[in-house]
């Protein structure tokens, strides 16, 4: 924070945060008798009324199965469902709408690539590189497929500051590398990784790159063509949208060459008992009746973000992060985990002699929601020799006053616990 005397209340000039807060009905509720302070946004974001209304509207006016019927409801439901695909395409600047595969979320997107591309392409002796700050969802699928194909899984180490050791990455990268799967923004540390550098280096060795965009999609401008990534996975629920909806972006020619994932309805062209031919992109990867309502309601979330503007969102979140970092640093015994030069809206820390769970319980008693634990990144916690951290993660609807409440809550909790 540039101005140390800046007080809570004097905040971003561009966005009217109070107005934004009014768009999120859940922010009005009380928790344990206190106004909710929601700092668990890296786990899932809250939803604006536009998203909630879209869900209700869908079931009230549009509900029908998509792509099948010729009746009015089916056509309207299909149009609403497919409109989200165009919105996602625009949101990440993909070249073609058929490069957007609907998934349940980031985890399913990564699994889809592992089970189709991975099983088809990986051979004995090949290597897949991940990083030491991956979420379990970008570790386990690669362990499974590497074990099956006798390929080797290697890991880019993480420095004490919580950044990727890029020198080590260049050493790991070789002609044997077939894929680099790396997180864009770490859910546990907030580190923004230099994915463009990684992608260019990997392509230089003929390897593909999958970017786990679960945390980045709400905060950073995503341009998959400029990044030149081969796959990009995201989740709607981390970016103001509903749970159970997400997208996998893949370059068209790669997706076309990939074998199918799930078999069933929708993904087929013709079925006989002798042979089935498959539908074209993106439908060949979308077997069965999809999560229609949640995809329909994902579009207003994207529109909401677009309307606020990512740069404005980032400005506000950066202000929250620096203010929180400063406030938390003042508290004796706190050690911040993850002090990368480039971070996005995640503040992870430990406190001398205090278990994160105790802090989580006492903050919850004040209506403050933080995450405590290993954040589904156990190898990363082991790297820092800690069982877990306390993580406050910020979103556009959070305020500096709420950060003050967090700091106060922490001080009180530490006093009681020590």
């Amino acid at each position, binding site marked *: 924070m540039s101005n140390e005397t800046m007080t809570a209340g004097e905040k971003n000039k561009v966005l009217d945060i109070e107005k934004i807060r009014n768009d999120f009905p859940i922010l009005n509720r009380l928790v*344990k008798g206190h106004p909710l302070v929601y700092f668990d946004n890296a786990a899932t974001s809250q939803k604006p009324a536009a998203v909630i209304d879209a869900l209700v509207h869908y079931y009230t006016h549009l509900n029908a199965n998509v792509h099948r019927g010729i009746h009015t409801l089916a056509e309207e439901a299909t149009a609403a469902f497919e409109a989200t695909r165009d919105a996602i395409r625009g949101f990440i600047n993909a070249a073609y709408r058929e490069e957007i595969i609907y998934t349940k979320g980031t985890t399913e997107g990564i699994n889809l690539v592992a089970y189709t591309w991975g099983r088809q392409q990986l051979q004995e002796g090949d290597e897949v590189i991940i990083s030491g700050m991956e979420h379990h969802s970008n570790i386990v699928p690669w362990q499974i497929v590497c074990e099956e194909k006798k390929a080797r899984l290697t890991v880019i180490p993480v420095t004490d500051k919580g950044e990727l050791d890029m020198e080590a990455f260049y050493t790991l990268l070789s002609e044997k590398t077939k894929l680099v799967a790396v997180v864009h923004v770490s859910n546990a540390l907030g580190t923004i990784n230099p994915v463009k550098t990684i992608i260019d280096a990997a392509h230089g060795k003929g390897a593909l790159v999958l970017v786990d965009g679960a945390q980045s999609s709400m905060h950073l401008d995503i341009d998959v063509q400029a990044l030149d990534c081969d796959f990009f996975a995201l989740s709607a629920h981390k970016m103001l949208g509903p749970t159970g909806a997400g997208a996998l972006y893949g370059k068209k020619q790669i997706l076309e060459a990939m074998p199918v994932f799930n078999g069933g309805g929708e993904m087929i062209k013709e079925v006989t008992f002798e042979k089935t031919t498959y539908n074209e992109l993106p439908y060949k990867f979308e077997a069965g009746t999809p999560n229609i309502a949640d995809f329909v309601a994902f579009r207003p979330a994207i529109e909401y973000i677009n309307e606020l503007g990512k740069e404005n969102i980032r400005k506000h979140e950066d202000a929250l992060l620096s203010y929180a970092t400063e406030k938390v640093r003042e508290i004796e015994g706190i050690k911040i985990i993850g002090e990368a030069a480039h971070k996005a809206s995640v503040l992870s820390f430990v406190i001398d002699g205090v*278990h994160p769970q*105790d802090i989580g*319980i006492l903050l919850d*008693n004040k209506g403050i929601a933080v995450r405590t634990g290993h954040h589904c990144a156990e190898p990363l916690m082991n790297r820092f020799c800690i069982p877990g951290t306390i993580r406050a993660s910020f979103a556009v609807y959070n305020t500096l006053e709420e950060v003050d409440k967090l700091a106060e809550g922490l001080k009180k909790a530490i006093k*009681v616990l020590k």
Partner: protein
Amino acid sequence: MTNSKSIPEIEQEIVEDFSLFDSWDDKYEYIIDLGKKLPPLDDAFKKEENKVKGCQSTVWLVADYIGGKVIYKAESDAIIVKGLISMLIRVLSHHTPDEILDADMDFINKIGMTSHLAQTRSNGLRAMVKQMKHYALAFKGSKFNA
């Protein structure tokens, strides 16, 4: 130390203790205080086989069977959990396996703990009670085998 009071009597005592508190702040302070007072478990007992599964923090639980009574010792790396364990030990320790197996442990609901602790944490509490009852069951079996 023997326990002259029955399990339901001790449960009732705890419920009455808690009824004196006006706020959850006070309740937590009391639980934290219990946690701080819980005697540490010898490091020799802090091994994998004594860990209670299902807890977000680490809980070690051991039990002895002396003179027909089960005696529990436990520790955790988190203080609030330690305070909760301390209450469980106060209720169940120094009773016979049958008394322990019959205990409904309804005091946990009555003091509002289940509604106040998030699902994950009350799962941990349940896991501890389950493990304590497992010990009682095992000792009961050994009694009949002996």
